[in-house]
């Protein structure tokens, strides 16, 4: 379980997070929605320790993440980055097996390659892709490779940062389906940030809306459709009129 208690983060005068309180129960898929620039990615990076929050607490199974031993802590996570963030200089299989070739989870090279190919197969990519470089892949394939890398070491918690951005609707659907299947079969805790409502409906057990540096609303997907909250209603229906200014 991940708990955020009163998390604040500012960049200079820009107060991005202004006391975020959120609980992500273990084994559930939480999707954070919110407009561009509302701090969704910052929130996710604060949990991972990529960005240091100013005040507040972030707990993973009751333990303060800032006091955790970094390597074992990060070994529990997998992350799919918005742009894939694949390492250009490494082949696809080396990207997927990166965690298995370095550090505490290091395996023999042949075993790491076999696992990478298996994970690539799991995300619908043929073994021939393994020896290509990321630059030789389409955007959708890069996302799949990123997904394979995120699950390569069977993490307990997986983060997805805008998993369908830049993909056509069919490929976005494929990625959403893969994420849902993988999270379910691995029993992982998942946190996704997106403003793609199709993704929300496909991936989420629970939804939280971040607005104005605070969690504005949380609930299930079914509750999201019926909530009277004007912020949620404006966002999920994509209306220009409402309490969220369209010019930000």
């Amino acid at each position, binding site marked *: 379980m991940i708990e955020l208690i009163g998390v604040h983060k500012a960049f200079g005068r820009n107060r991005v997070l202004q006391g975020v309180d959120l609980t992500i129960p273990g084994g559930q898929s939480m999707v954070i929605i919110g407009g561009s620039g509302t701090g969704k990615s910052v929130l996710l*990076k604060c949990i*991972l*320790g*990529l960005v240091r929050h100013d005040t507040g607490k972030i707990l993973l199974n009751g333990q303060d993440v800032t006091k955790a031993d*970094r*390597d074992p802590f*990060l*070994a529990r*996570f*997998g*992350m799919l*980055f*918005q*742009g894939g*963030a*694949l*390492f*250009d*200089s490494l082949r696809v299989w080396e990207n997927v097996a*990166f*965690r298995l070739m*370095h*550090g*505490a989870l290091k395996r023999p090279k042949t075993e790491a390659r076999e696992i990478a190919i298996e994970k690539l197969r799991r995300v619908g990519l043929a073994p021939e892709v393994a020896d290509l470089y990321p630059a030789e892949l389409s955007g959708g394939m890069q996302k799949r490779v990123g997904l394979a*890398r995120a699950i390569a070491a069977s993490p307990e918690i997986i983060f997805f940062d805008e998993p369908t951005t830049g993909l056509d609707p069919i490929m976005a659907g494929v990625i959403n389906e893969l994420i849902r299947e993988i999270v379910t079969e691995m029993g992982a805790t998942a946190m996704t940030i997106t403003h793609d409502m199709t993704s929300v409906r496909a991936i989420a057990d629970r939804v939280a809306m971040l607005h104005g540096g605070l969690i504005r609303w949380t609930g299930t997907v079914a509750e999201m459709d019926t909530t009277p909250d004007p912020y949620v209603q404006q966002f999920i229906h994509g209306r220009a009129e409402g309490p969220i200014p369209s010019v930000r």
Partner: protein
Amino acid sequence: MTLSPPGALAALGRPVLAALAAVGRVVLYAALALGHLLRPPFYTREFLHSVMQIGWNSLPVVGMTAIFTGGALALQIYAGGSRFNAEAVVPQIVAIGMARELGPVLGGLMVAARVASSIAAEIGTMKVTEQIDALVTLSTNPMKYLVVPRLLAATLTVPALVATGDAIGIMGGWLVGITRLDFNSATYLKNTVEFLEFWDIGSGLVKGAVFGFLVALMGCYHGMNSARGAQGVGAATKAAVVAASVLILGFNYVLTELFFSA
């Protein structure tokens, strides 16, 4: 607009403080990198890749620079020496000039142009495309994986490049000497070998190691601190090359004072 005395002092103080803060950040960054140099894990593959990129791939440009410099140096020394009947010192001065100064400085500057830019651009692009964040989430310290191998490779390979450049530069001087200046080949080589002392070459190699370290440090530092977008990466690349070049020239003076001042 006129500035009041306190305003003028503040206007002067701000850039000085900013410059000192920047120097402090670079020194701390270098200290951090050196600390990681001694502690595992070590990324051998990254190190060997960097050796190829920084050392081997810089050989053509360093060699070309050295051969033309050696040749031009021979012509200049001959022309200058002829003013007081000292044309015979061409082999000795070419050798000492290449080994002590031009080999390491020009070699360092060529490596700065080629390597500092490429390191800054590569690491800067990795930063803006979140590859550095990805490294961290994969339990890999970017300082150990990206910076240490490059620093080590540059510190070890630039002296080798300097030694090669020295030899090629001296050969350039010899070539010009025997074809254009009527020197006897055997005498030219004999004078060169007999005149050069170990420290003439050794000091150049030490300079090469320092310059290599500075080049990689500037490339990594500016790449890691690159701002977002193509403009940010471009600015980081430019800053890395300028800073590395200026530092090479500055440190060259300091090291020359240290090694050769009476």
